[in-house]
């Protein structure tokens, strides 16, 4: 399928940010008439590579050639002029304009200095037809689903006669039918000789649409593979960077003993709980003194599941019974009243209140629970604050420091402290160790283990599988926004087993 000379060839690309080598001598080739997937975990360098190719970032070293011509991009405009178009996850179009206006924006046919609107619509229909799309060019963009808007964005890319099309996570908010439609458009384009670079976190989609794939890890190239020759299990192990044998050996770490469930009823039980477009209905039982890990790739529905358990999003089917009482949570406050706590993966956007002090952030949950009228007495607040600053080792140990000035790890500890202060029965931790240093990470892991020993029920989410495996008594495996399997994590469970489940979707 690949013709002889690549459409894009990137050689020895390095990009450095202060203190981080985002890309380190990466090679990448993209041929006309192929769909090429770029794979890698969070922070592997996928988006940095894309931004280098689209001219958003300048490169520190290396060479980019497009159709044999060496290029130095100083901005997105130059990349576009070279025939490279990008469609991002969030659609960059004008919702309040018509489909035709969006497609032709900046390239409107003119006659005598004025825009020829009939021509705009005619041209737009031509591009839509070229992709086999049946959309009324006069309709307002906002009247269409996100999927159709994405297709319109692709049509727009065709106007500038793109020879290279970059699709950065276009499917992350589409449902199965819409993905199919997108894929058929992608196939049309591929057959027309367009080189397509595709990024997605859904393994099924990668295998359904791509011809080849390139795997990155920690800013370095792992390799370039033909999709047909790389089984999923191997792909996953290349992405997380441990050979399957090594993954299995890592399991020498002391196994947690599975808490004896003394025939007790589950603390929290989800029955067919789901939310359209976010996560398919799932069942989950959570017991006291038990850590349940959620494993799966990014975008597999881990966070969505956690948010439903906390009521941060409303479920539209199923029920959640807490302490045997069936019902559904009306919101975070209702969840708190039931003894559920949730620490979001987005520490800055959904966790800390940056301009408040460590003390205020620590007390926020407790105070919110009591309502504004009954302020927690200063002495009691002091006790709580110094207790958690000491217990969690928050640095600086200054309750009056603004939280935004703390390091990521310490901010995370403040958030943990906020929730622990409310003495929850169920603690949901979404990526509590992401982006924090090794020491703080170990401390948080130890804390989770000891909390469970003391009888708390914990849901632990992490992209790092070995961490999930080390801490959890049970593991729910997520894939493509579905809970696909649940395993008891005992002596015999290995990282390889979990990887296998993620790759196979529990169907093997």
């Amino acid at each position, binding site marked *: 399928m690949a013709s002889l000379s690549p459409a894009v060839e990137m050689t020895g690309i390095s990009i450095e940010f202060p203190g981080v080598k985002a890309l380190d001598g990466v090679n990448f080739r993209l041929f006309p008439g192929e769909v090429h997937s770029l794979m890698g975990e969070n922070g592997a360098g996928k988006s940095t590579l894309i931004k280098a190719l689209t001219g958003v970032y300048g490169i520190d070293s290396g060479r980019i050639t497009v159709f044999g011509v060496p290029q130095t991009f100083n901005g997105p405009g130059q990349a576009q002029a070279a025939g490279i178009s990008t469609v991002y996850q969030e659609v960059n179009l004008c919702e309040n304009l018509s489909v035709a206006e969006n497609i032709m924006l900046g390239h409107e046919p003119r006659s005598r200095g004025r825009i020829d609107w009939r021509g705009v619509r005619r041209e737009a229909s031509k591009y839509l037809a070229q992709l086999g799309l049946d959309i009324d060019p006069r309709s307002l963009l906002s009247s269409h689903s996100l999927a159709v808007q994405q297709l319109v964005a692709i049509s727009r890319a065709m106007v500038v006669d793109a020879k290279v099309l970059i699709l950065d996570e276009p499917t992350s908010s589409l449902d199965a039918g819409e993905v199919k439609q997108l894929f058929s458009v992608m196939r049309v384009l591929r057959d027309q000789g367009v080189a397509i670079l595709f990024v997605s976190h859904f393994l099924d989609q990668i295998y359904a649409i791509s011809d080849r794939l390139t795997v990155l890890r920690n800013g370095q190239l792992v390799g370039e593979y033909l999709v047909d020759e790389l089984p999923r299990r191997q792909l996953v192990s290349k992405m997380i960077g441990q050979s399957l044998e090594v993954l299995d050996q890592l399991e020498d770490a002391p196994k947690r003993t599975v808490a004896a469930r003394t025939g007790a009823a589950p603390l929290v039980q989800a029955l067919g709980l789901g939310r359209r477009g976010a996560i398919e209905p799932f069942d989950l039982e959570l017991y006291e003194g038990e850590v349940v890990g959620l494993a799966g790739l990014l975008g597999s529905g881990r966070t969505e599941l956690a948010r439903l358990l906390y009521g941060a999003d409303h479920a539209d089917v199923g029920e959640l019974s807490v302490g045997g009482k069936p019902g559904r949570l009306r919101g*975070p*406050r209702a969840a708190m009243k039931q003894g559920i706590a949730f620490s979001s993966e987005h520490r800055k956007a*959904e966790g800390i209140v940056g301009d*408040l002090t460590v003390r205020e952030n620590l007390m926020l949950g407790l105070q*919110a*629970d009591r309502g504004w009228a009954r302020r927690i007495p200063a002495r009691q607040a002091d006790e709580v604050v*110094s*207790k958690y600053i000491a217990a969690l080792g928050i640095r*600086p*140990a200054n309750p009056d420091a603004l939280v935004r000035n703390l390091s990521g790890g310490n901010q995370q500890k403040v958030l943990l402290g906020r929730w622990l202060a409310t003495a929850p029965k169920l603690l949901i931790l979404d990526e509590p160790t992401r982006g924090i240093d090794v020491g703080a990470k170990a401390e948080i892991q130890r804390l989770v283990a000891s909390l469970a020993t003391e009888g708390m029920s914990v849901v632990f989410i992490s992209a790092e599988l070995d961490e999930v495996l080390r801490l959890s008594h049970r593991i729910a495996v997520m894939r493509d926004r579905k809970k696909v399997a649940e395993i008891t994590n005992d002596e015999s469970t290995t990282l390889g087993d979990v990887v296998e489940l993620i790759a196979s979707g529990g169907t093997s």
Partner: protein
Amino acid sequence: MHLVRHRLFWPLVALVALLAANTINTPSFLSLRVQDGHLFGALIDIMRNSAPLLLVALGMTLVIATRGIDLSVGAVVAISGAVALSFIGSSPNPEAVSTVLIAVGIALGLCFVLGVWNGFLVSVLGIQPIIATLVLMTAGRGIAMLITEGQITTINSPAYRVIGSGFWLGLPVAILIAGAIFALVAVLTRRTALGMLIESVGINPEASRLAGVQSRSIVWTVYALTGLFAGIAGLMISSNVMAADANNAGLFIELDAILAVVIGGTSLAGGKFSLAGTLIGAFIIQTLTLTVTILGISPSVTPLFKAIVVIAVVLMQAPIVRKKMAARRPQGPRPAVVEAKPVEVAA
């Protein structure tokens, strides 16, 4: 050095500079005299005249702290005066204290309801504050016109006059009312957790929601209070002139209130707020108005002077200017990150 960096330093300097300029121009400016047991003087005038603005600005401070804004306060001022005076004017004995009390009750009740309406639009329906309150800003003066039937209602009721121009214990009642409300708001926000929760909602609404903060009822309360305070301001303004002018009562007071809040160092982006800053801001605006009058400049030029003071104070507070100024000092700025300070940890 530390003093200069306090966020109220420059607003205070501006206020003192204005007072000093007046004293140089009129040496008797700062003098106070007692006449018939009442305190008189330019300072007392400033304080009394800034009372309505202060009340409106107090509410505005809280609203702005939640990332909102309330443009309707001027209209509410007009409605409040219109309701109270229409009731008193149409009552058989406008002089009776009971009539005045009922009128005040009805006016304030209505203004509270208007505040609740604003709060409903913002917190429950999720309409952008500037749009939500624009509705009442435009409609409110029409409502006031309906109440006064398009006339400037005037009354003669000594009991009502007390609110705006009366004295108690030697001090103007307006100052006492404003002072009491200021103290009340200070206690309400700083002695309870309301202030901290308002700031939390203003700084990071989503994090606050996930932490279980009842952002909806907090935002709602804040708008309701603002309506109530604007109502009290409306009573003062109408009592001062003993007339309800639906067109001009409280005209542009929303802009002055926003200015007072901004001069006082509360960011329009929400979050941290300073009631003391708002107090100083209201005094600055009122002193300026008085200064222009004393200097014999046409009052129509007042907005220009306001603009100059505002731009000066706001520039002084802008981070970029502060950094530039700090860089010129030999010591250099204090590090932004708070240094670790060991804390005695309770066992």
